[in-house]
């Protein structure tokens, strides 16, 4: 047991004008940051707002900035961070604050809705089923590990610092689009929107998103760069462009 000091972001009366409030509590072996927040909530601040569900890094609810780093509170053990000085916990800064550690992430859900949905080719077998080899889906499965924690969106400077929410869908939805585009059964084409409305060009491959992803998805190398290549192929390569017209995908 040792005493830890947490500085947690608390909203003001109307949900705005927040400040860091200091709490002290006892910590025991194996505790994660979310445990501490819960303990403070149960004993010192019943109305402290935070999101969580699984407590095992599976649902992507408990995203916050711990000592300034976008992280899952439930997967950050106290022995992974310095606790000899106060630990700060703040909400994700790329989204509008709602209360305390809770932010308004609804923008993400709206963005997803605008991306064209999965459209499979006709079934391969008479019984209505498809055949795919494991090695052909490994990459898509990597993207589909995404737990929609939005930490990558939070860290991306295009959203966080430049507020391009209306012009750029962010790394999460580039991964989502990549999963659809590289799905062996899919027949839809999402490349034109990627270039225009979805602003893939804003990404300058800083790889910050890949660094924070709790699912270790290699967002930049495996999803964004191949998509950028497709955009280039489709728009700047007349031969490739012609090829696409003669022989559509699928």
């Amino acid at each position, binding site marked *: 047991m040792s005493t830890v000091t947490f500085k947690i972001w608390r909203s003001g009366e109307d949900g705005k004008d927040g400040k860091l409030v200091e709490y002290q509590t006892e910590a025991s*072996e194996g505790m994660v940051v979310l445990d501490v927040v819960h303990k403070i909530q149960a004993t010192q601040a019943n*109305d402290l707002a935070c999101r969580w569900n699984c407590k095992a890094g*599976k649902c992507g609810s408990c995203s916050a900035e711990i000592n300034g780093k976008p992280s899952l509170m439930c997967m950050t053990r106290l022995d992974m961070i310095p606790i000899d000085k106060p630990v700060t916990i703040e909400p994700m800064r790329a989204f509008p604050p709602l209360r305390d550690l809770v932010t308004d992430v609804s923008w993400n859900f709206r963005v*997803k809705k605008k991306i064209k949905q999965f459209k499979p080719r006709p079934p391969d077998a008479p019984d209505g089923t498809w055949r795919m080899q494991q090695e052909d889906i490994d990459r898509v499965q990597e993207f589909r590990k995404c737990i929609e924690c939005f930490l990558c969106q939070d860290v991306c400077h295009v959203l966080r610092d430049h507020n391009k929410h209306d012009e750029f869908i962010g790394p999460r939805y580039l991964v989502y689009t990549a999963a659809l585009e590289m799905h062996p059964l899919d027949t839809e084409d999402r490349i034109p929107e990627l270039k225009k409305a979805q602003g893939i060009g804003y990404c300058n491959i800083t790889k910050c998103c890949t660094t924070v992803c709790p699912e270790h998805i290699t967002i930049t190398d495996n999803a964004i760069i191949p998509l950028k290549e497709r955009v280039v192929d489709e728009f700047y390569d007349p031969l490739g462009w012609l090829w696409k017209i003669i022989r559509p995908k699928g």
Partner: protein
Amino acid sequence: MAINYETFEYDVLVIGAGGAGLRAAIEASSAGVTVGLVCKSLLGKAHTVMAEGGMAAAMGNVDDRDSWKVHFADTMRGGQYVNNWRMAELHAKEAPARVQELEAWGAVFDRTKEGKISQRNFGGHRYPRLAHVGDRTGLEMIRTLQDHGIHQGITVHMEWTIVRLLKDGNRVVGAFGYDRERGRFKVFKAKAVVIASGGLGRAFKITSNSWEGTGDGHSLAYHAGAELLDMEFVQFHPTGMIWPPSVQGILVTESVRGEGGVLRNKDGKRFMFDDIPDNYKNQTSTDPEEGWRYTQNDKNARRPPELLTRDHVARCINREVKAGRGSPHGGVFLDISWIKEKISNAPEHIKKKLPSMYHQFMQLANLDITKEPMEVGPTTHYAMGGVRVNGETQMSSVPGLFAAGECAAGLHGANRLGGNSLSDLLVFGKRAGEFAAKFAKENPHVQIDEAQVEAAAQEALAPFEHGASTGGSAEGPYQVQHELQNMMQELVGIVRTEGEMKQALERLGTLRDRAAKAAVYGHREYNPGWHTALDLKHLLTISEAIAMSALDRQESRGGHFREDFPDKSAEAAKVNSVVWKAEDGSMKLRREPIPPLPEELKQIIEEMSK
């Protein structure tokens, strides 16, 4: 008191956005009715996202001896024959098509060599039957349904909580709730309501369930006049994490054992060989070598005893611990690292097959499962009992009120087989959506009673009034909640006796009084103290139903184990427990005879047990 609220109108209102709720909403909306979907968390975060091992469907992709008949017989045997056999039959028949449908909607399951959907072994399933994606099948399922559902014209209300159903005479016509963000009241007017609210593990101290699992749907339905069935059957999953303390209860998937993991006590002994129940004797191996071959898909091998049903494995672990043969932190060892003796690239193999388990132990317990055994113990996991429904339509005893998924009862009997829940969500979620839409079309006229709305609002605001009138001296909701969870864990947990359950029922009375006075301070905006106070009513209701049903069942069967009645009873085998709310507000219980099995299903069971 003048109540401010916003009103929404839908043909079908679905409460819950896990697998069952999403599937119901998709089905109802494709039937051409308007659909509203409410959930307590953000979309995609419901419990279903945490499911790991897979979904059971007799597709026969890995072993073509599998068929709906074998799946049906396995489900009935696992449930120890108190299941609703019609549901078990429909489930076994329809699950393959429902899984296939997910693929058409974009799900990417692991494959067999022939490129088909791969299937894995799981406890109580005779053949490899679980379609899966590594050990994150629930994520794949919920994301697929979510991504398909958002293009279906369903209106989603995230982070809203329903606290009461509204009725017109006998019939359910809507619901009352609040949004977490601002704490504003919402009224739904609906021609049919589907409850798909998931489980109730939060009634116990050690559980794999999240904060959402407070049995809301069970309780909402009960207070609206629906019957609850078989509430004594709670599944204690044998393998939850036990160390460090803060992760206690978090699930360790059964797939660890499916992939060859073994259970050992502190002496290194595989204690599961010591106690193999008679009805599983001829399917279970007594030879470690044969058991290993089974996990590697040798069709001629029989399963290792680690893959016996969950209730049994959980009790064996309990026995080892009580006999002083447990691990240092009061559990037993689960070892997958030993397979390095069998295969050369074991660490990579384990990471590929069980990626999230590897991750979970590495990050939360600082333990590498490819090198060391895990420490595990039982954790409250799943409610077999729930809202009593018609097996085909999923309508409860209250007209217009449907239930599907974990909050509905019947399919799993006394014990659910792993993997049968995810398929349950799809099969009966779809049915609930279909029949709710039909009901809505056939019964268009609904009217909301203002007085009920007003009463619900007053009840919801009461905790703030207690806070204001006592000036900070009254007890908060967390205290009551913790005591309830400890009490249920100790007195109505994995091993039960008459004396303890009577005591539990008594203590529930005092806890109810305290909950009614619990005080909350502050504002209505995203205030978890307030939410906890409102959930207490549900927790208390379902705890009473569990204790009352468990007290009445004087035998041991499936998830329900009575130390004072350790055997099965032929009398109790013939009945289900039914709980309902009497006119005077008190809870009543009756035993209801299980309808006799039709001849053809009986024959299937006999054939399969040879």
